[in-house]
């Protein structure tokens, strides 16, 4: 009976698939899912270990969202995240396009541009402090060269709400990441379509927007998704290089957790859940929008 044999083989394959998935699923469900459930429960007033249990209680969210500074913090968080993502994207595409051309010492440059990828964020932040701060290398060189009387007159780059320092670190670290992703796509697709367009009389602009861009779009979407998700939840850069109060939301959450008053930890948890909500909504709509576009152009 070949049919039952086929069925048994099919079942075996299924079981094997589940066994393969099990380790990752366990980690995801227990660690990630468990933390998520516990976080949401805490933000709704469930913390018997601090002697607080008013579940379900929306007052922490009400207090948070009713505060004008929460919205200012959210604005700053989104501004750093979006602006840095866009800047990295533009620079990353330019870099990737340059990389597919041939130029002298390209093989060396191919390693060089990946350097920031291997250096941790904290080191990048330290570099920003050393280079861009008011007591940093640039300001000292300027003072030494006589452009300014003293290093403290150097225009303030770090510790402002414009966030040039935060954005600089993000862009420095993320441009190579975007370039790497898009460069891989560019290598995979080859030059044939672009050359065909050129032969048919398309100018450079048309080639980029109508031939190259649609083909590298999946790379753009996946890389920006990853760096945006990181930027919105990152703590160190805005904590060290940001402009102080009002802080970005991850820093606000940290301040609540770090307070001597334990009950504020629930407020902190509400802040963390808010970040997750905002990030989730933005990323989901971004993906949904992209899927719709893909269907429209006939890709699946």
């Amino acid at each position: 009976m070949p049919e039952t044999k086929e069925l048994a083989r099919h079942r075996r394959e299924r079981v094997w698939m589940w066994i393969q998935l099990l380790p990752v699923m366990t980690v995801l469900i227990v660690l990630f899912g468990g933390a998520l459930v516990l976080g949401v429960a805490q933000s709704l007033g469930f913390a018997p270990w601090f002697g607080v249990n008013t579940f379900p209680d929306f007052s922490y969210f009400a207090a948070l969202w009713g505060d004008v500074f929460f919205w200012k913090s959210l604005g700053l968080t989104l501004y750093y995240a979006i602006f840095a993502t866009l800047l990295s994207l533009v620079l990353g595409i330019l870099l990737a396009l340059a990389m597919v051309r041939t130029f002298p010492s390209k093989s060396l440059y191919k390693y060089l541009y990946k350097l920031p990828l291997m250096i941790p964020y904290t080191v990048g932040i330290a570099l920003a402090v050393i280079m861009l701060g008011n007591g940093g290398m640039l300001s000292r060189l300027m003072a030494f060269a006589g452009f300014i009387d003293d290093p403290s007159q150097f225009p303030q780059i770090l510790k402002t709400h414009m966030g040039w320092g935060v954005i600089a670190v993000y862009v420095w670290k993320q441009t190579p990441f975007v370039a790497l992703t898009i460069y891989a796509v560019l290598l995979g697709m080859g030059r044939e379509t672009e050359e065909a367009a050129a032969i048919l009389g398309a100018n450079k602009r048309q080639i980029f927007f109508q031939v190259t861009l649609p083909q590298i779009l999946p790379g753009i979407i996946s890389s920006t998704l990853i760096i945006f998700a990181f930027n919105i939840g990152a703590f160190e850069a805005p904590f060290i290089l940001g402009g102080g109060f009002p802080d970005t939301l991850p820093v606000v959450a940290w301040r609540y957790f770090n307070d001597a008053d334990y009950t504020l930890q629930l407020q902190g948890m509400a802040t963390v859940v808010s970040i997750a909500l905002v990030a989730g909504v933005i990323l989901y709509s971004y993906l949904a929008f992209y899927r719709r576009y893909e269907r429209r152009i006939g890709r699946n």
Partner: protein
Amino acid sequence: MKKTLLSLSVIGSLMAGAAFAQDAEAFRDGFIAGNITWEDVQSRAKEEGQVNLYYWGGSDKINVWMDSIAVPALAAEGVTLNPVRITGTKDAVDLVLAEKGSGKGLGEGSVDAIWVNGENFATLKRQDALMGAFADKLPNSGNIEWNPDDPRALLNLRDFGVETNASEMPWSGQQYVCAVNTGRVAADVAPSTFDGLMTYLAANPGKFTYVKPPHYIGNTFVQAALYAHNPDGNGAVPFQGSIDELGAAELARLITPGMEYLKALEPHLLGAAGGNARYPEDPKALDGLFLNGEIDFSCQFGLYGVATGLRDGTYPEGAEQFVFPEGNMIKNKNYLVIPGNAPNPAAAMVMANYMASVDSQATKLEIAGMPPGIDPWKLSDADAAKLDAASPGLIGVTQADLDANTAPDTNATLVDVIEATWLEYIERNSSDSIEAIVENAVANLK
């Protein structure tokens, strides 16, 4: 058979645990009652073998002293000192309270001693998480003034206005001292009053800032400003009582002029010209600003901070100490406390006793620049001279200047309220009146 054995061994280990806890409690009670000799403590400490000291590990100098001097010295007494470096003392307090909450008593926790003072001690005491009155019964406790009739004993008997009851051992004493960068400003231009500071900053905007509350270094600057602007003119005196004794309305009245001063000061602080005043997060960040010449004055706890800072290059050449604010240079001590659920109580006492010795205090002073916590007038002349010789020295001020301008710390229960008021009134720029903010803060902290 196997099952019986297993359950027997489980019961056995449970009983052993319970017996050990009981035994630790009997030891504690016996020691505090004075029935246990120091030799017995030492032999028990050797059995326990280890002591876990939790302390703020942000100072390389202290860490070096701990590893190169304290660890070998205690090893000679048969106790392994395990220095647990933490970024905030609150972490260790949290751990003690969490373990206490899960039912771990004496002999069962994981923290043997913590370097604390102020609010953290007040929290431990309020939560009934202290081992008890051990500090005046150590052999080296004779180096410390415990006599309540001597006004100088106050720093040993009260920690931020909270009675210590000898449940913590004074380890170091500090005073809030400001430094001026004479490479940029002449020492005689440095202000000595808060009004003088305001005048200076009006002429030199942005050349000063202080550490952001709720960091205690920032809180202390705020407290000094409140003392100096006390409307009754009696400085620190009313700030010694607890919030229950004082009441929210009275506290609000006392701090209003000081808070208004700090608000008026903000537009003159570092970065204020660019739109937002910058308050550094911690003393390290403040040191960086001072070293870079971004600010002309830097205030923090550290009698010998300038001397040691010049030695290791973390202070700008030409840094000098100066008297600011006149009459309100806050002085306090910091302590080693043994929590009520210390796993190794005897070893913790041997460690505390070592920390109160002249040798350890002198080397700590010399290497780490940490002022002594023991009281020099209780020492023999030779020991006092040894301590003197180890001092890195004051720069620009004399001990008499400092002694003449000393003020006590603020009661720990007020510190929380003042810190919350600063955050609301200065940082968040609230439009509420100070009375309303204080009342709200008091209600929230209850």
